[in-house]
C-alpha cells in the first residue's frame, strides 16, 4: 500500500501548487475539495487492510465534510455575494508558485530536524503535512478576497490533519474533529463577513476592512 500512499501524497503536493497557481475561484474550490478527499484517504491507505469501523467512519465523515459540505457552502457564498470568478492576488501567480517550491524546501528542512518519532509509513508524510500548512498560510496572506482566505484556511486545516495522523497521537481524530469544528465556524463567520462586505462596499476584498480602522 506504500506506493498508493506515496502517490496520494504527491497528488496532495500538486493540489497545493494548483491552489497557488490557479486564477479562477471555482477551480480553487474544486482543488480544495479534491485536497479534502485525498487527505481523508491517507488514514485508510496507511492502515490498510486493518481498518476498524471507527476509523472508516471518521474518515468517511471527514471526507464528506471537506470534499462536499464545505465546498458547497463556499459555492453558495460565492453565488450569493455575486463575486467575480477571479482570484485577486497580492503577489502574482508565478511568484506564488516559486514561493511554493521554496516552501517545499523549507518543509523538507524542518521535517528532517523535527526531534520526534513519526509513524513509519512514508518518508514524505511529515514534509507534505508541513508543506500543506505553509501553502495554506501563504494563500491567506497573499490573496485579497475573503473566499480565497477561507480556502487557504481549509488547506491549512488539511495540513494539520495529515500532521496529526503522521504522529499517530493517541486520539488524533478527536483533536482533528475539534479543528474541523473551528473551520466550520470560520466558514460561517467568513460567510457573514463576505455578505456584509459585499453589501457595504460592493466587493469582498478584505482590503476594504482597513478603512474601518479608527
Amino acid at each position, binding site marked *: 500500500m506504500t506506493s498508493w500512499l506515496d502517490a496520494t501524497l504527491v497528488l496532495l503536493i500538486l493540489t497545493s501548487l494548483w491552489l497557488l497557481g490557479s486564477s479562477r475561484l471555482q477551480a480553487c474550490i474544486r482543488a480544495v475539495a479534491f485536497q479534502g478527499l485525498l487527505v481523508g484517504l491517507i488514514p485508510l491507505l496507511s492502515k490498510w487492510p486493518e481498518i476498524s469501523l471507527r476509523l472508516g467512519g471518521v474518515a468517511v465523515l471527514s471526507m464528506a465534510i471537506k470534499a462536499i459540505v464545505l465546498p458547497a457552502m463556499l459555492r453558495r457564498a460565492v453565488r450569493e455575494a455575486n463575486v467575480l470568478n477571479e482570484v485577486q492576488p497580492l503577489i502574482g501567480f508565478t511568484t506564488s508558485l516559486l514561493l511554493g517550491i521554496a516552501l517545499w524546501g523549507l518543509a523538507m528542512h524542518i521535517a528532517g*530536524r523535527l526531534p520526534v518519532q513519526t509513524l513509519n509509513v512514508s518518508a514524505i508524510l511529515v514534509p507534505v503535512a508541513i508543506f500543506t500548512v505553509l501553502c495554506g498560510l501563504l494563500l491567506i496572506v497573499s490573496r485579497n478576497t475573503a473566499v480565497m482566505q477561507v480556502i487557504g484556511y481549509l488547506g491549512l486545516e488539511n495540513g494539520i490533519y495529515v500532521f496529526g495522523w503522521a504522529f499517530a497521537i493517541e486520539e488524533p481524530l478527536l483533536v482533528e474533529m475539534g479543528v474541523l469544528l473551528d473551520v466550520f465556524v470560520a466558514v460561517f463567520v467568513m460567510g457573514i463577513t463576505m455578505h456584509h462586505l459585499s453589501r457595504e462596499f460592493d466587493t469582498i476584498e478584505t482590503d476594504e*476592512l482597513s478603512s*474601518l480602522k479608527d
Partner: protein
Amino acid sequence: MWLFVAGLIVFFGGGVVSLLMRMSPRLASMVGCVAAVTGSLLALGSAAHVLFTGQAAHVTMAWQIPFGSLALGIDSLSAIFVVPIAVIVAVAAIYGGQYLPSSYRSSVIGPSWFFFNLLAATMLLVVVARNGLLFLLCWEGMSLASFFLVLTDHERERTQRAAWIYLAAMHLGTACLLVLFLLLGRSSGDLDFERFTCEPGSAGILFLLAVVGFGTKAGFIPVHVWLPEAHPAAPSHVSAVMSGVMIKTGIYGLLRILTFLGDVPSWSGWTLVVVGVLSGILGVLFALAQHDLKKLLAYHSVENIGIIVIGLGVGLLGLAHRIPPMAVLGFAGAMLHVLNHALFKSLLFLGAGAVQHGTGTRDIDRLGGLLKKMPVTGTTFLVGACAISGLPPLNGFVSELLIYLGVLTGVADSSRVAEVGWALLCVLVVGGLALIGGLAAACFTKAFGCAFLGEPRSEDAERGHEVGAAMRASMVVLAGACFLVALTGPIWPYVYGSAVVAVAPASFHGEVQAAIEQSRFPLMVVCVSSWAFLAMVGLLAMVRRALLSGRQVDRVPTWDCGYAAPTPRMQYTASSFASPILLLFRMFFRPRIGQHLPTGLFPKQASFESETPDVFREYLFEPVFSAVAWTALRLRWLQHGRLQLYVLYIALTILVLFIWKLG
C-alpha cells in the same frame, strides 16, 4: 454540602432561564428573583449546618483540566462569608424584583438577572473553592458578571467609563493573584489548597502579593479607584451586593492566604494597620466631600474596609507577638465587621436606590424633606446611618468595640507595655478608629440631614413618593438585622471562634477559647445596656402616646424666627455643611472650590460650590495610564487594519521559531 451544590445549580438554572425569556420581562424578572432567593436559602442552610455542628464539609468532583480539580469545601472560615453573601443576595433580589422592572428598559431585565445570579453563584464558589485554578476562574467570573451588571445602563458614557475602570482594576489585581497561586503551588506542582505550601523566606512577598491582589477587589487605598466609579453606575440592588459582599471576597482571600503562610513577620501586621487607618480616614474624608448619594456610600465602603483591615492587622500583630487575646479579638472584630458592613451598607444602598426611584435624582443638593414623603425609607436609612457611624445600640458598634478591645488588651500586655512601637500602635489604631467614627457620623449627618430633613430643594424632591412594598420590606429586614446583631452581641465571638482557629497557627488553639471567654463581659454590658436603651425608648414612646391621646396634633412648618418669606434655598446645602471639615483636611485632598462671596450692603449674587475629585485617580493613576497610552500610540503603525499582514505576522513568527529551534 450537596445542599450548597443544589443552590449553585438553582442560581445557574434560574439565570439561564431568565436570560432566555426575552418575550416576557416580567416573567424573567420573577424567575431570576425566585432563583436567587431559593439558591441563597440553600447555601445559607449548608453554611448554618457547618457553623452549628462545627464540621467542615467537602466534595470533590472529576474535572478534566490540567492543575484544576473541582474541589469545594465549607469550613467555618468559608461559612462566615457564605452567610452574609446568601443573606444580602436574597434581600437584594427581592428588592431588585420590584426595582429593576420599574427603573430600566425591558430589554435589559433578562440579561441583568442572568448576571445577578451568575455573580451570586461565583461569589459563593469563590469562598468555597479549594483549588487555585477553580478559585481564579470563579474570581474572574465574579469580576465579569459584575462588570456586565455595572454596564446595565450601557448607553450612558459615564457608565461605560466606570465599567472600563472597573475591568482594568480587576485585571491588575488578578495578575497579582495568578503569580501568588503559582508561587504557592510551586513546590508541590499542584494548585490544590490542601497542598499549598509556603517556602521558607517567601512569606513576605506572598503576603504583599495577596494584599495588592485582594486589596484591589476589597478597595484598599490607593487601589480603591474603581469603587467610587462602579458602585454609583450599577443598579442599586447590584451596588448593595457589590459593596456589601462582593468586595468582602477580597478580605476572605486575604484570610485564606494567611492560613497557608503560617508564621508571618511582624511587619505584615503593621502594614495592614497602616493601610487600614489610611483607607479608613481618607475614605471617610472623600465621602464627606461627595454630593452624589451613591458615590458617598461607595467611599464609605473604602472606609469600612479600612476598619476591617485594621482589625486584621491587630490580629496579625497578636499572632506575631504571641498575644492570643489580641489576635482573637482583632480577627473576630474584623470578621464580625464583614457581616455588619454587609448589613448596613446594603441597607444604605437600597435606601439610596429608593430615593433615586422616588425622586429621580441622587444629588443630595437637590433633595430634602423626604422623611415626610418616604417614612419607611427615611427611618431605615437613619438606622443604617447610625450603624455605619458605629453608634450603639447598633451592630457597627459591636465589631468596632471588639477591635478596640483587641488593641487595648494587646497594648496592656505586661511584657511589652513599655515599648515605643506599642504606644504608637495604640495611638494609630485607637485614634484612627475614633477619628473614622467621628467623621462618619458627620458625613451621615450631612447625608441624612440634607436628603431627608428640612424642605425639598427641588421639584424632584417635592414629587418624591414612597417605594413599593417589596422594596420597603427588604430595607426593613436589613434594618432589623442591624439591631439583631447588636442585641445578641455576646454570642458572636463564639460563632467566629472556630474561624479564628482556622487562621491562627496550631500552637495557639488552646488559648483561643480562653480569649473568647475574656471578651464576653464587655459585650454583655453592651448588650444589656442596648436592651435597656431600647426599652427606655419604647417606654418614652408609650408615654408620649398616652399624653397626646385625645388631643389634636397639628403639623406646621418649622418656625423661621418670624421671617416672612422663607425659601428652601435658605437651608444648608451639602457643600456648605461639609465645608468646615473639608477646609480643615484640605491638605489631604484638593477640593476645587468655586466661590463668589457676597459684597456690599445689599448683595445680589453669591455662590459657593465644591467638587472633590479622587486624588489618587488624578495624580497617581491618570499619569501612569496616560504614559502607557502614549507608548501604545507610538506602536500604532503596526495596526494597519490589513487582515493579510496580521496573518503574515503570525506565520512569520511561527517560521522563525521553527528555524531558530530546529536550526
